[in-house]
């Protein structure tokens, strides 16, 4: 599903450049539940942004669903994101003036689905994350955990191949963290590839494979107890 070979990424800082990813090789198959661990500055967010087509890499190869990602313009990237990827962000990134239902329905708008149908589908997904009764509330009327569940519903609504979650529990307390992780596990159980970035061991342990990143290189890549339990 995701195949990365010798990936490099640098950011210019003044005259110098900061080498963030120094040759990453990673292969994630369909249906995997992978977490990337690393301290801040390890390059884990950069990796997710490149995988999510929110940023571009400098060197190396990236194949998404077998397709080479190179010299992608914004329009093509937008289509691929809409078709293959669902995002869950640490800060939720819901649109403040839209209700929960409208936020969930937004990716379907860009898919070109008509209003009636997209609101029906969106409601279905809100029900799935247990927020059907909150459909017509604005984001600022929801708790952090509820917002993240809305964001997860929004990530799932287009039935993407991969869900990318950047510190999805970073802004949540432990109880809501568990409920969000349970939700991600349930999604994975349905066969969707889930790719989580975190710096919390407890979160990483709930995934099936942990890839540890340090200073732009992979230092370990192993399966967890959770995967063996299945």
């Amino acid at each position: 599903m995701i195949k990365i070979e010798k990936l490099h990424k640098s950011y210019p800082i003044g005259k110098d450049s900061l080498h963030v990813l120094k040759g990453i090789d990673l292969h994630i198959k369909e249906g995997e539940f992978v977490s990337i661990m690393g301290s801040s500055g390890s390059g884990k967010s950069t990796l997710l942004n490149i995988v999510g087509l929110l940023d571009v890499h400098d060197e190396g190869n990236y194949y998404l669903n077998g397709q080479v990602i190179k010299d992608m313009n914004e329009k093509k990237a937008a289509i691929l994101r809409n078709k293959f990827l669902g995002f869950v962000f640490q800060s939720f990134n819901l649109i403040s003036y839209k209700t929960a239902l409208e936020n969930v329905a937004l990716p379907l708008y860009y898919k070109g689905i008509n209003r009636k149908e997209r609101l029906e589908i969106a409601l279905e997904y809100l029900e799935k994350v247990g927020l059907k009764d909150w459909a017509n509330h604005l984001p600022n009327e929801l708790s952090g955990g509820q917002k993240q569940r809305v964001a997860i519903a929004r990530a799932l609504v287009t039935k993407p191949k991969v869900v990318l979650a950047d510190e999805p529990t970073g802004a949540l307390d432990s109880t809501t963290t568990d409920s969000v992780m349970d939700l991600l596990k349930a999604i994975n159980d349905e066969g969707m590839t889930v790719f989580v970035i975190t710096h919390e061991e407890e979160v990483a342990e709930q995934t099936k494979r942990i890839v540890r990143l340090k200073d732009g290189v992979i230092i370990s890549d192993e399966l967890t107890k959770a995967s063996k339990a299945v």
Partner: protein
Amino acid sequence: MFDLDRWREIFQSINKNKLRSILSALTVAFAILLFTLLFGIVNGLTNFFKEAFADDAQNSIFIRVWKTTKPYKGLQLGRRIQLRNTDYDYVTGEYSNKIQYQSAIIYKNFTIKYKNNADAYNVRAVHPDHQFLEKTIIDEGRYLNARDLKEKSKVIVIGRLIKRDLFGEKPALMKRVNVNGISYMIIGIFSDDGGDNEERMAYIPVTTAQMLYGNNDYISQINLGYDPSLSLDAAVAFGNKLERDMRKQLNIHPDDQSALSVRNMAEANKNVGQFMFILYFIAIIVGSGTLVAGIIGISNIMIFVIKERTKEFGIRKALGAKPASIISMVVQETVLITTLAGYVGLTLATFILSSESLREVLEEYFIKDPSVSQGVVIGATIVLVLSGLIASYVPAKRAANIKPIEALNAD
């Protein structure tokens, strides 16, 4: 293509951001309002001046004479100059190619009597063209014609107010009146925009007057209408040449300003024209300034708005929005607001300019019938809408093309 979903997005965005929507709408509405009021007032001034000169034909030249104040060619000062038929024939013959209308005038004051009603009135003995020079409006019957002059007929055209004085509501046409003891037939009744004095006036053929009152060839004044196809400068030059020639003809010293006056409306027109030109020039500069201020206002608001929404654009892009859909969302929103606001400004200005009480006040300040041609205002609105389009397109395009990760991290 009409896209209901797109417009739903736009209205939601406008509704959510009421303050900035209202601010940008106010900027545009105010710019159009000021622009319209300014041009309305300038047009009102123009209308006032046009009407002030509307009593007589715009292309009139009046030739009048008095006493000389300078001796010339052995002739003494204090000599009374008299215009005669020969002078009239000279002028009309010499310049026939530059003259549209021509009339000699003899001023008289007669008692006009019908049955028991009588009063003293000014009477002008004229040629038929005088009708056009004075802009006399015939209400009933006809004006003097060439045959009246040839036959020296005793016919009279009376003003609307004379008819009212002498006849009341009864018909006056083809009735006979007694003019200083001589019976005249009323052949026409006229009105005139020049006021009551002009309507308490009567016209008789110049030839009839010369025959009956002194049996001479004297005339008081010569009125001409120069060929309206002449340019203002050519008309002024014609008036100047006419004056020089008349001085020679009448043996008047070239510098004797008191003895002869050739008043040329072309000169007044030229002055009014220059005045109006400057007025419009100022109006265009100030009006453009208003529009530019409006344009800068919208541009500022749009830059701010788009900066504020960068994160939202990033979210939308992460969810699959193409750059074009973001640009067109912003541009359509701006165009909608500027168009509506422009329309509001235009309507408000039209409403203000057509208010009766305001019109009465303005008329005291030489502003009459202030109004603006729809074309000018719609043009101004289009300029503002186009500016709003550009002002939103440029920053929107930039915002739509920055990498989504940067947009997401924007505050």
